């Protein structure tokens, strides 16, 4: 083994060591917040018990848990459409936002005509537009998915545009010298370089898609966790409201985690 291979090996070993200490840091970073949250929940339980505050105002964590258990069938039945509509809104955002991002990057005419409008459009407080969707698309899932798309679309556009411009100019020159086609440059260079940007955009977009669906459920009042929250709230069943929130958090975390998981898998191939 030559000297520099030895150096490379030592380098690799130090990278491994770094990864191990990162593992310790990650463990610390997951365990500490869980302990902190647990302390708050326990304090909350004790405070509600001690103060005798009305459960309609603030239920104890234990009653939230029992409300979750008691209403599990309704909660699951309503979590399902919320989840599916969020996924639908997200996938639509990803495909349409990605497409617009590519068009904006590759066609100067499209960019000059649309980009300022896209930015301006972004400034609309999107929740305020929700009643319009109900007017146009009715009270079915179409309205809620459209709302999710409307909210979650922009981060994908922006991250696609900046990601596709992130490729190393020297690599692009190499491709030019090899007479690579535009398709090859797109798929073999620009797209892999854009992935970190794209995944950041996807994480934001997934979070926004959930908000979009919940707003849609508030407005259309048909089904879903948003509807449960609204309905239980109007009947002062605060524990049920919080149970629905708990389920909603779980759904959100799972969907966000799913994006993170795909990111990790893809980035082991396309990471640096």
């Amino acid at each position: 083994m030559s000297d520099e291979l030895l150096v490379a090996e030592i380098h690799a070993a130090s990278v491994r060591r770094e990864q191990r200490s990162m593992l310790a840091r990650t463990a610390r970073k997951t365990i500490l917040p869980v302990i902190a949250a647990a302390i708050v929940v326990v304090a909350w339980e004790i405070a509600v018990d001690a103060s005798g505050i009305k459960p309609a105002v603030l239920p104890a964590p234990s009653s939230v848990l029992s409300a979750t258990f008691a209403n599990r069938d309704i909660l699951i039945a309503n979590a399902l459409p919320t989840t599916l509509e969020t996924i639908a809104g997200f996938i639509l955002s990803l495909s349409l936002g990605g497409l617009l991002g590519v068009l904006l990057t590759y066609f100067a005419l499209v960019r000059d005509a649309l980009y300022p409008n896209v930015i301006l459009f972004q400034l609309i407080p999107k929740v305020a537009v929700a009643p319009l969707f109900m007017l146009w698309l009715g009270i079915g899932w179409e309205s809620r998915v459209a709302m999710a798309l409307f909210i979650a679309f922009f981060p994908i556009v922006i991250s696609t545009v900046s990601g596709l411009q992130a490729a190393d100019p020297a690599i692009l020159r190499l491709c030019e010298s090899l007479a690579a086609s535009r398709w090859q440059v797109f798929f073999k260079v620009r797209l892999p370089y854009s992935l970190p940007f794209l995944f950041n955009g996807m994480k934001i977009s997934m979070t926004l898609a959930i908000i979009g669906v919940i707003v849609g459920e508030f407005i259309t009042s048909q089904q879903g966790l948003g509807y449960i929250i609204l309905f239980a709230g109007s009947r002062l069943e605060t524990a049920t409201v919080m149970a629905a929130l708990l389920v909603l958090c779980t759904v959100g975390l799972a969907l966000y985690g799913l994006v993170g998981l795909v990111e990790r898998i893809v980035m082991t191939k396309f990471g640096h």
Partner: protein
Amino acid sequence: MAASEITAAAEGFVRISGLGKVFRREEGSVQVLRNVSITVPNRQFISILGASGCGKTTLLMMLAGLESITSGTIEIARQSVTKPRRDVGIIFQDPTLLPWKTALENVLFPIEIFGLPLAEYRPRAQALLELVALGEAMHMRPRQLSGGMRQRVAICRALIHTPAVLLMDEPFSALDAITRDELNLMLIDVWERYHQTAFFVTHSIREAVFLSDRVVVLGGAPGHVVADVTIPFERPRAPTLGETLAFNRICGELRTAIAESTATSRRDHTAAMRAQA
């Protein structure tokens, strides 16, 4: 004598004739090359030497088909160069490796772009990497390699498709002196084996003399050929060649040629300034 020169010119594998380059910018146009003519026989190793700003990199980029030609012509194998050709391999100043590909995959990148069968070229890629002592590092990614190792990967990548012409744009200028000497030896080793027509752009006189069969000095503003020197040393060349008297005499001649050309261009510049005033 004259007749034999004409035959030699006709047989030139790479023919640069009357080449000029003007960059047009909003602030006005700048002429960087004027009437450059160089005829290079097949399999010659030629260095283009000159101070920074003499247009040597521009000349190389025009050879690569990456820069447009303002006047004159460039021919490779009797075909005029107007766009990048697939029988040319380039080594840039920076290694320009794709960070997510291993050394081996980076070497095979041109094959991937050309749509040729990867499996067929993999043994050649491996052989090239072994030749530059990267046999054990071929599955590492650029992040894990040193600067010198990365540039060696770039050498292999430029040679993977057996190009007829190899173009090098100060490929070792970003490396430290020791690594640079090492890579020069490695390059000469590889070149003596494959023996393409090679253009090596550099501002290092010793590097040019050590590597080349011939050194062309570009100088002045706009740049033109100010010296064209044949390097007589036999191959394979020993690392100790640089310590010989003959080697240092040629380096001295070239140094004088460069110094004279910069002095002339400075005098011209001053004269032009006076004329303007």
